[in-house]
């Protein structure tokens, strides 16, 4: 027996207070194995001990919510006609920093399991990625390129192989992520209301089955690992990296869906972080029961594994299934059909204990509910709030705006992401009706005959400058992207990526972002269905910019409404819904051209935003809108350029904006919110403008779509004319040329 010393306790990330609590729960000292079990269950990753009190601020209910956030592995939302969707976002930041390909791949595998555990067939994925700067020849830039390439390849490998299309996402590059990339993956599944599967160990005497990959010494204590800062040292004591096997997962997915349809299942739970430990104590806790398993029966890949290693292993592609007694043979037949390893490893009982045996000896005996749900919760100290100083524009002279547009379009965060999404199979399952490259992805879910729109969003510069405003805007932008496709937002999932919560300035960011996001969710009527918290995202250089990512889903009522961001025909009128705007704070223009993150982010006015989104959606539904694109990073100029060149055929535009400002960079590149560029047939323009006026939404015709391949913008007394071929070259080659070789 390994003696429990203060060093060992500390090594497990357990504080002296927590240790006394463990002793209180057990009425004795824990064994070494039990200490390991507590350490993973009470890690931030599993218990959300530093963030739960904040997460309670999110709205989680609504008429469409069938399963609430936190109740099960993923929330479930009604989409009508007896159909529902389950979706969630999950991070795999730290594993991806150590091994980008496998880290990202297993992240995809994990989120997919969360979805089919709910009884839903996964139908599409998205991903939200952040890396350090990939430009230049420094060692750091090269590392960042390697991470970027590896992560994209890992996602592509896993998603393509399992046959779930990756239809959208986002990628940003910023120094703050050097050494600590963010890899947030999203998956959505479809199910009928009566197919919702639960993760509770119910039915005393029901057998407990283990199915899927054999357990090895993979990712030992990965949950604890995700709950620490990445230091040079942690790169050395790397836990054995988990390797994903998408082929196995595909079999597991099909077998589980068949199993759930068979009615043999009382409860089901995937083994994610903290593997067997988490799945046994959580199912027992949810079921209000106890679960007893025998480790000797667990299929293993390696010999000589200790109970500690088996319980904490994070081998991928495994599930725990609680089977209705008497149905064991049916269950075995399904596992055998799909050639999956499985074993009956235990039983549900009524004593509320998580009891783990190794043959005849009991190695773990812990009250399951206390372990799963009674982790200590902390409200950390938050620094005093300080608002960013107003932007002093005089410090940033107007740049050569003709060149500035090229700088923006070639900035990796804004440049075309085709290099990324062409590596993803986005067309499998016959759903991708709006391909990547427009605002939100639009997907036909064939089994339900429903059309969904989905988008991931977060502008971390805004969040750095003002986490509350930035988080609000993340929600607003996601909703706006969805509105631009003709859809109504339904609900969202989030992934809160922050630094070490023990640092008051970081905790302030968390609190501000959560409160901002919660408020925006209420305003946009999009409850939070679940999500993930990833803290301790720091490299030796400091914390990442706060990155509360949003993954939002909406529904398109009629295929006729589906709208894309590209201009459609020359002669069409270009209408700006919203005001020209003038906020340059926290803009990509300041970053890409002046090299600074400065000033407050643009202000979000909920009423204006909601009115603009509603108005555009109404116009789309009346069949008047040919294209709709929101103004985001890089402002009006970038949005117009994208509308000209991101479609199948290039179309030019001639635009005039009369600003209050004498500077051209303000009207061209400001990032004021609540703006959408639409194009409509010229003959419809007056009535569209009249309709907008009637609803009180500011709008004006700013120009015309032209057949001539150039973008011409007249503003502040100057006229800029960019040949589209040049803009396209800049925008489309930026990432491929950096990634060559």
């Amino acid at each position: 027996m390994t003696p429990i010393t203060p060093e060992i306790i500390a090594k497990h990330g357990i504080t002296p207070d927590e240790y006394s609590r463990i002793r209180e729960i057990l009425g004795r000292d824990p064994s070494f194995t039990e200490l390991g079990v507590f350490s993973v269950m009470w890690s931030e990753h599993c218990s959300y001990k530093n963030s739960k009190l904040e997460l309670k601020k999110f709205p989680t209910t609504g008429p469409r919510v069938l399963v609430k956030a936190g109740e099960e592995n993923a929330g479930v939302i009604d989409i009508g006609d007896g159909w529902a969707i389950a979706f969630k976002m999950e991070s795999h930041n730290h594993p991806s920093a150590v091994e980008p390909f496998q880290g990202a791949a297993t992240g995809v595998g994990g989120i997919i399991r969360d979805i089919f555990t709910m009884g839903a067939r996964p139908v599409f994925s998205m991903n939200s990625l952040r890396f350090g700067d990939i430009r230049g020849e420094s060692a750091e830039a090269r590392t960042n390129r390697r991470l970027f390439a590896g992560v994209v390849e890992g996602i592509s490998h896993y998603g393509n192989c399992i046959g779930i299309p990756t239809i959208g996402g986002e990628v940003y590059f910023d120094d703050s992520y050097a050494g600590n990339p963010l890899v947030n993956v999203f998956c959505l599944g479809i199910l009928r209301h009566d197919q919702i599967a639960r993760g509770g160990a119910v039915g005393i005497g029901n057998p407990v089955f283990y199915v899927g990959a054999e357990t090895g010494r993979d990712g030992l204590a990965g949950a604890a690992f995700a709950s620490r800062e990445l230091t040079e040292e942690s790169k050395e004591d790397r836990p054995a990296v988990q390797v994903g096997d998408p082929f196995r997962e595909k079999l597991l997915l099909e077998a589980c869906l068949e199993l759930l349809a068979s009615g043999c299942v009382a409860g089901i739970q995937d083994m994610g972080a903290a593997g067997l430990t988490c799945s046994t104590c959580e199912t027992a806790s949810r079921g209000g029961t106890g679960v007893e398993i025998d480790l000797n029966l667990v299929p293993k890949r390696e010999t000589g594994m200790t109970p500690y290693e088996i319980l904490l292993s994070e081998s991928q592609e495994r599930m725990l299934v609680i089977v209705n007694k008497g149905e064991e043979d049916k269950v075995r037949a399904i596992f055998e059909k799909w050639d999956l390893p499985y074993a009956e490893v235990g039983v549900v009982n009524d004593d509320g204990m998580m009891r783990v045996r190794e043959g005849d000896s009991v190695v773990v005996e812990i009250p399951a509910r206390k372990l799963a749900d009674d982790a200590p919760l902390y409200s950390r100290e938050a620094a005093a709030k300080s608002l960013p100083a107003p932007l002093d524009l005089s410090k940033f002279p107007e740049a050569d705006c003709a060149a500035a547009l090229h700088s923006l379009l070639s900035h990796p965060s804004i440049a075309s992401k085709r290099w990324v999404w062409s590596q993803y199979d986005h067309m499998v399952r016959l759903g991708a009706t709006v391909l990547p490259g427009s605002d939100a992805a639009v997907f036909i879910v064939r089994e339900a005959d429903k059309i969904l729109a989905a988008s991931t969003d977060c502008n971390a510069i805004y969040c750095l400058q003002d986490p509350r405003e930035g988080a609000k805007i993340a929600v607003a932008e996601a909703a706006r992207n969805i509105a631009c496709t003709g859809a109504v937002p339904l609900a969202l999932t989030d992934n809160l990526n922050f630094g070490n919560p023990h640092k008051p300035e970081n905790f302030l960011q968390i609190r501000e972002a959560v409160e901002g996001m919660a408020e925006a969710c209420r305003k946009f009527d999009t409850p939070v269905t679940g999500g993930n918290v990833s803290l301790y995202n720091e490299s030796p250089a400091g914390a990442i910019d706060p990155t509360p990512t949003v993954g939002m889903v909406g529904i398109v009522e009629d295929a006729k409404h589906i709208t894309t961001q590209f201009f459609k025909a020359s002669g069409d009128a270009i209408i700006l819904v919203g005001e020209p705007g003038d906020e340059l704070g926290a803009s990509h223009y300041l970053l890409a051209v002046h090299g600074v993150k400065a000033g407050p982010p643009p202000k979000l006015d909920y009423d204006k935003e909601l009115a603009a989104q509603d108005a555009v959606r109404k116009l789309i539904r009346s069949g008047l809108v040919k294209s709709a694109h929101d103004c985001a990073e890089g402002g009006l100029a970038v949005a117009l350029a994208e509308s000209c060149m991101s479609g199948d055929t290039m179309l030019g535009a001639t635009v005039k904006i009369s600003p209050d400002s004498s500077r051209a960079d303000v009207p061209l590149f400001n990032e004021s919110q609540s703006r959408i560029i639409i194009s409509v047939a010229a003959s419809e323009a007056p009535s569209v403008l009249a309709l907008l006026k009637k609803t009180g939404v500011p709008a004006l015709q700013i120009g015309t779509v032209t057949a001539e391949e150039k973008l011409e913008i007249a503003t502040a007394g100057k006229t800029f004319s960019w040949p589209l071929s040049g803009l396209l070259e800049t925008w489309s080659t930026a990432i491929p040329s950096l990634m060559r070789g």
Partner: protein
Amino acid sequence: MKFAVLRFPGSNCDQDCVHALNAIPGAPADYVWHKDTSLDGFDAVVVPGGFSYGDYLRCGAIARFSPIMKSVKEFAASGGPVIGICNGFQILCESGLLPGALVRNRGLHFVCKHVSLRVENAASRFTNAATTGQILNIPIAHGEGCYFADDETLLRLQTNGQVLLRYCDAQGRTTDDVNPNGSRENIAGIRNEAGNVFGLMPHPERACDPLLGSTDGLAIFQSILQS
């Protein structure tokens, strides 16, 4: 005409193929499990795309030994139409039902996109609903779709009119720029000598619905129905 859509462990375009075929009048489709040994009652076989056996070892290398493949060989030998799409094409090559092999894309990346394909020979059971020289817009999605065969085989394919589809540009030119994977002579699809086995890397089942941007894939399935 009843279509059998094979299901190997790791197939992932099986559902798409069944969906697309069932939407075509006169082309009902059903699944056939890899452990099955009979194709009785079916008039055509589709070997769908995906990652059979994870594409481990080589694409299609393990699937080739599935019980059902013996029946597929017999079915093909008796003249029944067999079409292999993407991973299905790889399986047919590995099985020896089609000549050549598919190797890693020269760009090393997986590529998913719409491509233009030139119909090289419309006098076949798989292309007769199109015209020779017609350009079809059908998506590809593969990491190992670079068609390779030795010179002698290529010459034979050419002489016998076995090359049915080539990657081309919008004007129908088969230049190297538009070759998405490095395939020899821009080959995207070939048939066997007897004319009843066809393999292609593009996914016609993904181009059968206007909401997906193209309906050119229908030409392939309709050709099978007509012959």
